[in-house]
């Protein structure tokens, strides 16, 4: 049951990443994905004979990675907005060559 909820979060996050057109919207959807991963991990650790300590610590590490990733993405979005005056992905798609 919990795994199905995790799949729901995964699917919603993927749907959002493809559909959103701003970088911040995509960041929100990435957080949904990471939450699905954490939920799946804790469910597998707590409801089966697997190592429960390992599962919970893994989820804590995922949360730390999510925080680090959010700070980095925020800094990148600030730079992109300063340089392109927008955060739409279509407008930022040009390469420097």
């Amino acid at each position, binding site marked *: 049951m919990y795994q199905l909820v995790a799949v729901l979060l995964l699917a919603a996050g993927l749907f959002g990443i493809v559909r959103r057109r701003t970088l*911040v919207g995509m960041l929100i959807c990435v957080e949904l994905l990471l*939450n699905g991963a954490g939920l799946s991990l804790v469910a597998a650790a707590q409801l089966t004979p697997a190592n429960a300590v390992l599962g919970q610590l893994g989820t804590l590490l995922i949360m730390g990675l999510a925080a680090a990733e959010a700070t980095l993405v925020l800094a990148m979005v600030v*730079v992109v907005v300063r340089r392109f005056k927008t955060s739409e992905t279509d407008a930022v798609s040009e390469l420097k060559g």
Partner: protein
Amino acid sequence: MEAMAAKIAFACYVLIVAVGSIIAVVARSLVRALLGLIMTLFGVAGMYLLMAAPLVAFMQLLIYVGAVSVLIFFAVMLVRSGPGGEEAKPAKMRQNLYAALGLLAPGVVIGGALIKRPLEAGLSRSPVEIPAAELGKGLLGPYLLAFELISIVLLVAMVGAVIIAFEKRGGAKP
């Protein structure tokens, strides 16, 4: 009685998570999408509590609801998408189609596998709460390397974020 209450609570949390994630994905304004994300985070924290993992639940509230969502809110404010701005236009048809494909591929494959092959009866157990001291011992014992690595990753991310954000306009170009 207790199993019944757990089932009802689980249904409530599933409802919160589902509604929250739908709001987070389809809302026109980014602030509303962020509120949907926070709703989802609360639902997931409730599920952690239901699985007798209170430490993870409180960390979820502290880190995600307390820190990450505030960060995303800062990003929304800095990007400053006005009412006529970026996400306001409805999405293109092709984009919607691709998004639906991205939704269906893992949903059908993993969800179908999960429904078709449920957990065998002998393998499921009722959750047991693990005291925080045990988790701390695990963090300082067998998983010490992961613990130290995540602290280095966090440090590098903070320093990198500061360096990127304070970059001078001309300094970036070689």
